[in-house]
């Protein structure tokens, strides 16, 4: 085989990191709070995927635990911030 499976995972993870940096543009520019929030949410999903890819690439299965917790916190953050941008009433 020309390349090992580990390298493929690491290269994919690098590609995801580069894409995440581009998404960061939207988080900085906005213009509304919700735009930033959405961008951070996408960044969070990207991070979860990167963690899973690293778990496979570095053969560290416990990275997946971190990814699971990260996904949970990402969800909570989106709900919490969108809740507090609205002065009254619920968003769910």
């Amino acid at each position, binding site marked *: *085989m020309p390349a090992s499976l580990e390298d493929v995972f690491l290269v994919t993870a690098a590609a995801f990191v580069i894409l995440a940096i581009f998404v960061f543009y939207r988080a900085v520019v906005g213009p509304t709070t919700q735009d930033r929030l959405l961008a951070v949410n996408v960044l969070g999903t990207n991070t*979860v995927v990167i963690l899973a890819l690293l*778990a496979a690439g570095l053969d560290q299965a416990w990275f997946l635990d971190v990814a699971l917790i990260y996904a949970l916190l990402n969800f909570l953050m989106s709900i919490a911030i969108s809740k507090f941008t*609205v002065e009254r009433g619920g968003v*769910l």
Partner: protein
Amino acid sequence: MIETIRFWLIAVLLGLGVFFTLVSTIGVIRLPDIYARAHTASQTDTLGAGFALAGVALAFGWEQAAVYTVLLLFFVFITNPTAAHAIARSAAETGVEPLLADEGTDPDETDGPAETDGETT
């Protein structure tokens, strides 16, 4: 032989994952308003993450880690639309106006000043 097939299968899955995430990234940067961006954000959540995590699960084979990965994907599938809905709802509640096609908005000119639409403060 089996190993080679598995290698290329994983490579293709990861490639598709990167492709859909790339499209989603382009969408998040190019699309004109928050509601349109939310559509393309769900592409990352579904196929981008889906293909990449499928590749990871395949690499782990029949281990517990593969079950973990599937669980992770299931979790992402349940929580992310809820989060996207909450964000869109919060945009609607705070009075961000959507750009709509039938109101004479030219979709070609979306990257210009239209981008500041919906700024409420």
